[in-house]
């Protein structure tokens, strides 16, 4: 029996390959994700290890709160002297590692993210200069060798670095390797003296860390204890060098966990769709092999032997798919990296890491998914009566049993309930997402089970114009599609999943866009904003100051974002910083209780609370908070805003004057700077003047008017949207393979029939048309089902968000384009099967047994 199964696979290599392909893409995505994240992880871990290889004890700022995004406040430089005096310390040095932008000779940034590192004395410094020398003076700079080589720098060039304080031009004196490699994790690093580094990253008098080496014979652990004692009471964490490397690696692992999970989910979707295709393929091949299987039963094979034979086939196909998927995953890694790079996530590129875990998961997943998908057809195979070996003719299409419909409805209802729980429940983001996912899977399965009922009606609707246009070909295409509704439905269902998800995110993004547009229109009372070019970044306070000095500028108002921790709250609270004196002139605040006059009465501890923060907040409430700077403060609510219910730019948390943010939160960078022209000023001229000022000293900042602000938000949304499209494309491709597979198999099945048609006079072109139209009908069924499901999902999710001002909009044009695209994709999928059908030799086809 084993031999029969394996020989069978070998005898039809093309069919086996096509079936395996359904799962290959899903496995490739999963393998690729693991390889990518493992590789990134490893390269960073290597960097951390290398960086602390000369350090026996490392002193870093203590985390203020586990959940804060912002870094804790840097160390005070005076700690360095204290540490040096500890018994057993051989040498100690301050470290700076900050974000800057390194400019190429032509002015464009070398990368999305670059860094500046302060030169440290031996044994701490890991950069070794291989060309030129290390920087000694305050206006000298070194670069990592990779950046130096890649961008045509020469020793003696003046390199522009844009940091906190604006742009500086430094003389390039050397290129260095980081340990053994030409750059740490592929990231560009500028190397300067400590004071220069401090000034570039805005940390005058401060340090990001202190590296300490122990005297001969003293263990790092012992020294750590002594240093801890000496620094008791300071907001620092003291670790040995290796502990520090490990701690950084652990933090990184946490950050990447989210990314990895997100990518794995898309891989899972591709596998889910692949399972549909496997199920369908096996259903068809089992039906086609009825006589063969009946013969085996006739000769004495038991049901279990037949079951094992089919499952073995599935396992072998799954294994092939897993192996190919692993290779595919490797090939996918650069593509994934490119995709993520396109939305601004700069990831290092080093040799790929293929962990054992990745191989095991790939093998398991491929085999398990294929076997599970093949179970129902395998069970069906066992029910073939031996006597079927003696009967001729095609098996009749199985009728939809009552049981099947009931299960379908139950699945849909259960799935919908689970989705509702996920949306309206109070669980954390992670488990809510998982609940939503499980519910959606159930709904998809339920609809797929129910869909055979819908095939005939939809095919008639879609087929009627086809018949009109394509005559008998159209008619036959429709008949073929409805001949075995279950088969057509499952093929269409595979497409339905991908289309539903695409429709869902499209509608959601459109709604998001619309809500944001409305919010901007409502509140934007100024003329321009000044913000970071990248849209996610911040500008130093010097930018607002510079803008204020430009002739023709009337009101300038900064807005900042940070966070705080309020005791007993599950998550951190969003904090928006405003300038109470100027905000009302550039932004129309939406008040729940209070008015613009309240702003003048905020005093030293007054703040505003938005409905997004708490619906039960009242004026006079005291709010005690822990800030990212480590300070404990208490504010008093003096007014209530209603920004949050309309996607307001300032909504979602507490609104606090910028002076307090600077003093208590250490937050001095601006997210936006709103400005208004002075009365009577020429807007275009003033804007030009501002643009010139920025280009000169703050090349990372940019002016935007209201429309451009909306465009920028749209741009950000679209970036993520296209990323999701690209990731979903995988699933769509799998479902197209499914259509190819089903068509090829059914053409094989209908060989005699097609021979008859050709003998009776149908041309090759007409035969091709039949196949093509069948594919179009199938994909349109899938697209329409997907459209309806996607809309339903969008409606479902918009309910709980309505309170936040989210309104659903239907981008009809895009949706219509999607449906047309599906039809075209169906045509594409039918190209090869159609050609095969047309090439049938008439006589051989008729003689086909």
């Amino acid at each position, binding site marked *: *029996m084993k*031999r*029969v199964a394996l*020989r*069978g696979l*070998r*005898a039809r290599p093309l069919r086996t390959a096509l079936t395996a392909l359904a799962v290959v893409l899903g496995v490739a995505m999963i393998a690729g994700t693991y390889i990518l994240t493992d590789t990134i992880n490893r390269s960073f871990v290597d960097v951390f290890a290398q960086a602390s290889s000369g350090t026996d004890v490392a002193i870093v700022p203590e985390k203020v709160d586990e959940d804060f995004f912002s870094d804790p406040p840097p160390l005070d430089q005076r700690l360095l002297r204290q540490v040096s005096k500890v018994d057993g310390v051989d040498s100690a040095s301050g470290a700076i590692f900050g974000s800057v932008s390194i400019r190429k000779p032509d002015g464009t940034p070398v990368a999305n993210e670059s860094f500046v590192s302060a030169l440290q004395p031996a044994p701490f410094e890991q950069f070794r200069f291989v060309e030129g020398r290390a920087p000694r003076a305050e206006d000298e700079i070194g670069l990592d060798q990779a950046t130096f080589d890649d961008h045509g720098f020469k020793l003696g060039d003046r390199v522009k670095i844009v940091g906190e304080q604006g742009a500086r031009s430094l003389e390039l004196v050397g290129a260095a390797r980081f340990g053994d490699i030409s750059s740490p994790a592929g990231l560009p690093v500028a190397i300067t003296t400590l004071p220069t580094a401090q000034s570039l990253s805005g940390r005058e008098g401060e340090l990001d860390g202190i590296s300490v080496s122990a005297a001969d014979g003293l263990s790092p652990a012992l020294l750590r204890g002594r240093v801890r004692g000496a620094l008791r009471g300071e907001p620092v964490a003291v670790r040995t060098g290796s502990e520090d490397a490990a701690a950084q690696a652990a933090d990184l692992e946490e950050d990447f966990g989210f990314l990895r999970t997100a990518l794995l989910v898309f891989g899972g979707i591709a596998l889910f769709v692949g399972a549909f295709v496997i199920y369908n393929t096996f259903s068809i091949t089992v039906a086609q092999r009825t*006589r*063969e299987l009946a*013969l*085996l*039963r*006739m*000769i*004495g*094979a*038991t*049901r279990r*032997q037949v079951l094992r034979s089919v499952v073995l086939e599935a396992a072998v196909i799954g294994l092939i798919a897993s192996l190919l998927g692993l290779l595919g995953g490797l090939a996918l890694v650069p593509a994934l990296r490119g995709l993520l790079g396109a939305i601004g996530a700069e990831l290092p590129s080093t040799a790929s890491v293929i962990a054992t875990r990745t191989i095991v998961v790939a093998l398991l997943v491929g085999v398990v998914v294929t076997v599970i998908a093949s179970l129902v057809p395998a069970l069906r195979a066992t029910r073939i*009566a*031996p*006597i079927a*070996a*003696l009967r001729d003719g095609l098996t009749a299409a199985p009728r939809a049993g009552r049981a099947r419909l009931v299960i379908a409805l139950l699945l849909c209802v259960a799935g919908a309930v689970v989705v509702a729980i996920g949306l309206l429940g109070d669980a954390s983001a992670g488990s809510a997402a998982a609940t939503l996912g499980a519910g959606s899977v159930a709904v998809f399965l339920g609809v797929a089970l129910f869909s055979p009922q819908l095939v005939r009606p939809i095919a008639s609707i879609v087929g009627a114009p086809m018949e009109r246009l394509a005559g008998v070909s159209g008619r036959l295409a429709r008949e073929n599609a409805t001949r075995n509704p279950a088969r057509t439905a499952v093929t269409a269902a595979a497409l339905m999943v991908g289309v539903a998800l695409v429709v869902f995110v499209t509608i959601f993004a459109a709604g998001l866009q619309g809500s944001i547009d409305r919010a901007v229109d409502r509140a934007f009372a100024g003329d321009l904003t000044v913000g970071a070019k990248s849209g996610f970044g911040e500008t130093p306070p010097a930018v607002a100051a510079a803008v204020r000095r430009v002739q023709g500028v009337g009101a300038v108002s900064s807005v900042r974002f940070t966070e705080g921790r309020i005791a007993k709250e599950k998550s951190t609270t969003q904090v928006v910083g405003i300038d109470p004196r100027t905000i009302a002139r550039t932004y129309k605040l939406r008040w729940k209780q209070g008015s613009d006059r309240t702003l003048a009465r905020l005093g030293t501890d007054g703040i505003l609370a938005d409905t997004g923060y708490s619906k039960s907040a009242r004026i006079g409430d005291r709010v005690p908070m822990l800030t990212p700077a480590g300070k404990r403060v208490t504010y008093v609510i003096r007014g209530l805003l209603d920004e949050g219910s309309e996607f307001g730019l300032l909504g979602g948390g507490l609104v606090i004057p910028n002076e307090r943010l600077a003093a208590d939160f250490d937050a001095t960078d601006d997210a936006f700077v709103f400005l208004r022209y002075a009365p009577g000023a020429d807007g275009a001229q003033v804007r030009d003047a501002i643009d010139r000022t920025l280009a000169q000293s703050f090349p990372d900042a940019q002016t935007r008017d209201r429309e451009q602000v909306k465009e920028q938000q749209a741009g950000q949304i679209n970036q993520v949207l296209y990323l999701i499209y690209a990731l979903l494309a995988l699933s769509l491709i799998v479902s197209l393979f499914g259509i190819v597979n089903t068509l090829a198999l059914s053409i094989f099945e209908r060989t005699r029939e097609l021979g008859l048609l050709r003998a009776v006079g149908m041309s090759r072109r007409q035969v091709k048309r039949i196949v093509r139209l069948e594919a179009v009908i199938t994909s349109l069924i899938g697209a329409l089902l997907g459209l309806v499901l996607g809309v339903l999902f969008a409606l479902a999710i918009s309910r709980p968000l309505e309170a936040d001002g989210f309104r659903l909009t239907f981008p009809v044009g895009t949706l219509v384009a999607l449906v047309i695209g599906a039809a075209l994709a169906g045509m594409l999928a039918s190209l090869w099967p159609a050609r095969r059908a047309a090439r049938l030799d008439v006589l051989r086809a008729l003689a086909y*047994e």
Partner: protein
Amino acid sequence: MLHGMTAPTIVSTTDLHRRYGEGPAAVDALAGVSVDIARGAFTAIMGASGSGKSTLMHLMAGLDTPTGGSVRLDGVEIADLDDKRLTELRRDRVGFVFQAFNLLPVLTAEENLVLPLTIAGRKPDAAWLESLIEAVGLGDRRTHRPSELSGGQQQRVAIARALVSKPAVVFADEPTGNLDSNASAEVLDLLRRAVDEFEQTVVMVTHDASAAAYADRLIVLADGRVAHDTVAGSADEILDVMKAVGP
């Protein structure tokens, strides 16, 4: 192995009925058939289309369930058996040859030949296998796939397979239906030899009088009943019998 080893009847049916459908539209394929198939004999079953001959064989082989009456094969009451036992019965004690599509296309002739044993997890006795292959004349074709064999050769492989587990009875359903006269003769010779040399029992359904002439006994069915049950004579005599039975 006590069952019916030496009994003269190897398969017997008692008042066998097989009805398809219900109510006024029902069709009685068999309307009360009682026959005894003798051990070690070559029995031919003939009849016009719709006479029930194939149905009778299916029921005798345990491939179908009667709506009335019973079947006893090699001492076993078939109706008592569950699917597993029935499957074992087919594997070990019954051999099948049909008109077409007897062989698995992905296996060689030899692999097809020993398939029942492979399924049972048993190895064939080498000497027995060799003599069987020789007897059917396929010594130089053993590694060929069915697509590389002529119709007659395929049928011979099928017969060899039917014989490989030394079954109690071999059922052949129109074994020469797709063959030309030469190949037919070869196949029928083989079946005859199976009975004469290997002491097999063969039950053959056919519509061809010259094929039935190879048999020892002739059963003719008409309208679901036995119309004739005698010694099989020459082809001409058989034709006369058929004419007498009617269209």
